[in-house]
């Protein structure tokens, strides 16, 4: 009973941190609503270190993700014949009012909510597992730009998340 309450409180704190970090990355990226790519970056910042571990076990440098996200935009423009580096700009400000995620970000939150009974506790690896299962979108393209095998990354993330579950 005590363990369940402790786990629930820990998960709430992790969700709060995850959402705040995702929003910060979105604002740095000139977007108000965090998408899957911002949640993935946020997961890598979580103190449990499991998201980073999943990347490392899949042979990917976690700190290379941000540049890969930017690179996939440049690559996407190049595919239509445009050579354009997106001009850098200062971060934008958060909108007042309710927290809102972009569609891909909401997808992550919905999947986390649907599987919350398995989170003891919620870990960054859970987020990595969900994002690695997405086949389209900015996050998926960024992972491909990094040379990530999404199946390998998802397996690594799921195994780490399961160990976290077993430890609790």
């Amino acid at each position: 009973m005590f363990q369940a309450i402790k786990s629930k409180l820990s998960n709430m704190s992790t969700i709060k941190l995850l959402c705040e970090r995702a929003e910060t990355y979105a604002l740095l990226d000139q977007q108000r609503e965090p998408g899957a790519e911002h949640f993935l970056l946020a997961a890598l910042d979580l103190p449990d270190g499991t998201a980073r571990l999943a990347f490392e076990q899949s042979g990917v440098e976690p700190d290379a993700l941000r540049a890969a996200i930017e690179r996939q935009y440049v690559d996407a423009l190049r595919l239509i014949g445009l050579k354009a580096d997106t001009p850098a700009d200062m971060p934008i400000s958060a909108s007042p009012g309710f927290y809102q995620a972009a569609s891909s970000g909401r997808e992550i939150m919905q999947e986390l909510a649907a599987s919350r009974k398995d989170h003891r506790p919620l870990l960054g690896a859970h987020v990595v597992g969900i994002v690695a299962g997405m086949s389209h979108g900015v996050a998926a393209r960024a992972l491909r730009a990094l040379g990530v095998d999404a199946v390998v990354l998802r397996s690594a993330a799921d195994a780490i998340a399961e160990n976290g579950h077993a430890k609790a």
Partner: protein
Amino acid sequence: MVDLHDITVPTDPDEALAAVVALRRLADRIERQAVRSALRQGWPWSRIAQALGITKQAAHKRLSDVAADDSST
């Protein structure tokens, strides 16, 4: 100068849609830079809105933080 004839739409929908996302993001950034420049040159929001083809309220709602960014620099 980009010749629009040089733009080719990929036949792979994933690539074509990724290009759309990248173009929207590029347009958003250009818009913010242009609005910041306009505000620095003293343009009122009504003029910016007219140039963007949207209402003054819509322009202000979406881009008013550009003015805040500007005053903080």
